[in-house]
C-alpha cells in the first residue's frame, strides 16, 4: 500500500452561508494520478484549495503528511497575463521559502533549463508569459510547480482552451511525470479526452457522487447524479465515450 499523502475526512467548506463542499472524504496517496470531474461550480477548485490548506474548512479535516510540498498549477483564467514576468522569472519565483537570492543562481538556472527543456519550452526562458501559445502557457505553470520540488502537483483544469493535440501532449506529459513518481491531482471538464484516460476519477457535485476507475464511474447513473442531466455512455473500441444530453435528446426523438 502506498503512503497516504493527503487525507480529507468529512470535509465541509462554505463561502458565507453557501455550502460548497459537504462531507467530502478523499485520499491522495503516493503515485496517484487522480482526476476530479463535475459541473461548473461543483466545488472542484475549492476542493483543491481545501486540500492545499489555503481554504479553511467549516468542519472535518485535512491531514497532510508532515513536510509534504505541494505545487499548484492555477486555472489559466486566474492568472494576470499582463504581469511583467518572463518564463524563467515565473518558474524561478517558485522557490521562495527560506532565504533565497533575489536573482536566479547559476545552478538554479541549469535546473530551470532542464525542466523547461523537458516540458518542450527550451529556448523560451526569456519570453514574456503572455507571448506564448496556450499549451506553452500551461506548461510554464507546470514547470513552476515542478521547480518547487513538490511531491504532489495539483492542476486546475490543465487542458481548458487547448486543442486536441496539445491536450494529448499535456496528458501524455502528466502520464510520464506520474510514471516517474510524481503524484498528480487534476480537475477537468473533459470526460472523454482526459478523465477516461486516468486510473482514478472522483465525480464531485458538492459531495463525492462516485469514485473509482473510468469503467466504474463513467456510467449513466453516476454521471446523471453528478451533472444533473441524463447522459449516455457508449462503448467505442474498448473505450467509454460519454455523450451529453442534447445529442441524447436528439437521439430519442429520431428513435
Amino acid at each position, binding site marked *: 500500500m502506498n503512503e497516504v499523502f493527503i487525507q480529507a475526512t468529512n470535509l465541509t467548506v462554505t463561502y458565507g452561508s453557501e455550502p460548497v463542499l459537504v462531507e467530502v472524504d478523499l485520499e491522495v496517496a503516493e503515485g496517484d494520478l487522480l482526476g476530479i470531474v463535475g459541473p461548473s461550480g461543483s466545488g472542484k477548485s475549492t476542493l483543491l*484549495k481545501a486540500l*492545499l*490548506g*489555503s481554504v479553511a474548512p467549516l468542519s472535518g479535516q485535512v491531514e497532510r503528511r508532515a513536510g509534504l*510540498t*505541494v*505545487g*499548484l498549477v*492555477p486555472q489559466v483564467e*486566474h*492568472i*494576470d497575463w499582463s*504581469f*511583467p*514576468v*518572463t518564463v524563467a*522569472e*515565473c518558474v*524561478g*519565483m*517558485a*522557490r*521562495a*521559502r527560506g*532565504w*533565497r*537570492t*533575489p*536573482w536566479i543562481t547559476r545552478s538554479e538556472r541549469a535546473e530551470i533549463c532542464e525542466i523547461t527543456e523537458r516540458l518542450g519550452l527550451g529556448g523560451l526562458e*526569456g*519570453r*514574456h508569459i*503572455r*507571448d506564448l501559445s496556450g499549451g506553452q502557457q500551461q506548461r510554464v505553470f507546470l514547470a513552476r510547480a515542478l521547480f*518547487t520540488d513538490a511531491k504532489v502537483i*495539483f492542476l486546475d483544469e490543465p487542458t481548458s482552451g487547448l486543442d486536441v493535440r496539445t491536450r494529448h501532449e499535456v496528458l501524455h506529459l502528466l502520464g510520464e511525470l506520474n510514471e516517474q513518481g510524481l503524484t498528480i491531482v487534476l480537475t477537468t471538464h473533459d470526460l472523454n479526452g482526459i478523465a477516461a484516460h486516468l486510473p482514478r476519477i472522483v465525480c464531485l457535485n458538492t459531495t463525492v457522487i462516485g469514485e473509482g476507475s473510468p469503467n466504474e464511474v463513467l456510467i449513466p447513473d453516476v454521471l446523471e447524479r453528478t451533472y444533473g442531466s441524463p447522459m449516455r455512455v457508449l462503448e467505442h473500441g474498448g473505450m467509454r465515450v460519454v455523450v451529453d444530453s442534447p445529442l441524447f435528446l436528439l437521439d430519442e426523438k429520431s428513435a
Partner: protein
Amino acid sequence: MSGGAVLAIDFLKPFEFEFFRNGIIVATLAGALCGVVGSYVVLRNMSYIGHGLSHAIFGGYAVAGLLGINLFLGAGAWGLLAALTIGAIVRSRPIGSDAAIGVVTTAAFAFGLVIVQIYGSNGPNADALLFGNVLGVTLADVWLIIGVSICALAFIFLGYRQLLFTTFDAEVAKATGVNTGLIDGLLMVLLSATVISTMNVLGVTLIAASLVVPAVVARMLTDSFPRMLILAGVIGAVSGFVGMNASYHLDVASGPTIVLTSAVFFIVAFAAGVPLRRRIGVAHGAH
C-alpha cells in the same frame, strides 16, 4: 563668461545652501523609493492606495499635533492602521481594494480635518504638507529617508521571491508555503513608511503620482520584473533630482515639479511606445 558657464553657475548655485542639498538628497531618494515600492503597488492593482494613505496620514499628523505626541510616530501609527485595515478588508473580500481604500482613508483624512478645524493645528504648515516644500526639509528628514530606503532595500533583497510570488499570484504562493499575510503586512508597513518619509518634499496630494508614474513608465519599457523595479527606481530618482532643481529655479512647490518631470517620462515612453521597447531589447512579440 560664456553662456554655458553662466548656466552652470546658475545650476550649481543652490547647492551652496544646506537646506537645498538636504532637499536634493531627500527628493532623489524619495523618487527612487516611491518608484520601487510603487512597482509592487501598481502590479497589485492598488494604484489608488498611495493617494489614500497620504491623505490618511495627513489626518494622523493633525491628531498627533493635537495630542502633542511625536508627529512621525503619530502619523505613522495612523497610516499603518489605515493600511492594515485596508489589507484586512481586501483579503476578506466583501468589496474591492479601490473601494476599501476609498472608505478607510477618506474617513481617516476627514477625522484629521475635523480635529484641525475644531482645535486648530499644532502640526507643521498644512500647505507644505499638501504640496511639498524644500524649505521644510530638515537633517532629520534626510536621515529618516535614508533609514527607510535601507529598510526597503533589505526587505526587497531578503524577501524578493516571496514578494514577487505574493504580488503575482498570492493564492498559489500561499499554497506553496509562502507566508503571504506576513509579506502583505510588511509591504503595507513599508508603504506607510515611504509615504511618511517622502511627504515633506512630495506633498500629500502628489505622493500618489510618485508611486504610480515611474512604475507605469517602467512597465511600459520592459516585460521583466527585476528590470521594471530598477527602471522605476531610476526614473523616480531622476524625476526627484530634476524636479527639485526645477522647483528652486521656478520658485514653485517641489511636489508638482517632481511629478511633472516623471510625467514627461510617461509622455516620452507613451509616444515612443513599442519602438523604444524594442531598442531597450526586452520586447518579444506584438501586443
